[in-house]
């Protein structure tokens, strides 16, 4: 062992003895609890402190912005959860692929929708083709065809889609089924996230709707 190694060993021993002088006992549970409680309150306190540092005008603007955001969120949520009339025979949702459109940029809309609708056979999907028109009051509407198919045959019919003042896109159609005596009256809501809320309002005949 070299001299420096011997010294290192003596220094280590001396340092350990010196360190032994300090009390090391602790109420670990109490310390952990107090730190956790302190840190939990710290987040809210810092937010409150930041809030009080703002000028009244900025606070007022922030409150308005938060309320506006809440309203927008509620609007979006209502579109997401809005389904067809309560009296529908069955309801469900589909996912649609297609271009986003507005009254000024697109005249023809093609949508291909997929998804399981409860109690309905939509294995091969749903296709909607819409052309823009103007109704008698001068407002834009889209009308076209809706075709759906599954293992039990095809359904099709004319569809008219309206855009309400709040941006809700609602369509109605009467679909002829695979048999001459089969018909379904449907209503659907196109949702801004690409979904399609779908409801069969009434059905005649024995075959399943698409």
């Amino acid at each position, binding site marked *: 062992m070299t*001299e*420096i190694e011997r*010294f*290192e060993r*003596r*220094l*280590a*021993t*001396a*340092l*350990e*003895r*010196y*360190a*032994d*002088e*300090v*009390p*090391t006992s*602790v109420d*670990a*549970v109490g*310390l*952990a*609890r107090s*730190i*956790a409680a*302190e*840190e939990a309150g710290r987040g809210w306190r810092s937010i409150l402190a930041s809030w009080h540092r703002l000028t009244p005008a900025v606070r007022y603007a922030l409150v308005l912005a938060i309320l506006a955001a809440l309203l927008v969120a509620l609007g979006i949520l209502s579109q997401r959860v809005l389904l067809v009339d309560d009296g529908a025979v069955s309801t469900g949702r589909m996912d649609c692929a297609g271009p986003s459109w507005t009254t000024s940029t697109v005249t023809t809309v093609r949508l291909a929708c997929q998804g399981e609708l409860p109690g309905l056979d939509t294995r091969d999907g749903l296709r909607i083709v819409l052309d823009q028109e103007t109704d008698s009051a001068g407002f834009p509407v889209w009308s076209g065809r809706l075709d759906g198919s599954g293992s039990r045959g095809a359904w099709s019919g004319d569809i008219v889609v309206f855009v309400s003042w709040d941006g809700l896109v609602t369509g109605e159609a009467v679909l002829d089924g695979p048999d001459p005596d089969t018909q379904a009256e449907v209503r659907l809501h196109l949702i801004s996230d690409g979904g399609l809320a779908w409801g069969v309002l009434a059905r005649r005949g024995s075959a399943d709707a698409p």
Partner: protein
Amino acid sequence: MSLEAPLSASVIDRAVAGDETAFAQLVGCYHADLMRVAYVVCGDAEVAQDAVQSAWVIAWRKLGTVRDRSSIKGWLVAVAANEARQSVRRRHRQAVVELRVGSADREEADPAAGIERVDLVNALGHLTPEDRALLAMRYVAGLDSTELGRSLGMSASGTRARLGRLLERMRKDLGHD
């Protein structure tokens, strides 16, 4: 040194997730190590206590940043040493030079066998808080050069070289050359 076994990764994971009980286990396991290191850096039990308290608050907030669970002790010791170092600098006093030579029970039993406490305290007082932290982390907490390097942002070889220079200096200061 802590007499308890190192904690399992699951306890540390739970502490990271904000589990108070797991965090209490962490405190119970490593508090003594942290106190001893902080004391060597500051030389004052109360200052060390405050520094370690701050270290545990930092640990509660930032435990999730420790990727390697096996290096948790090294990380905690480095946080405590850093807090102690900053406490010394904040208080603008070299607490380690406050000698308590009148306390006979702290003297070495056989002065010839080792380093006298009074000499050690004087020698520590001539070091910077950073150097005291390095000595404490190495010889009190028992971190190796890799762990020391990680906490100091240096390579293991660089840490060994710095430690070697520090040892030489201590040896001269303590009259062991």
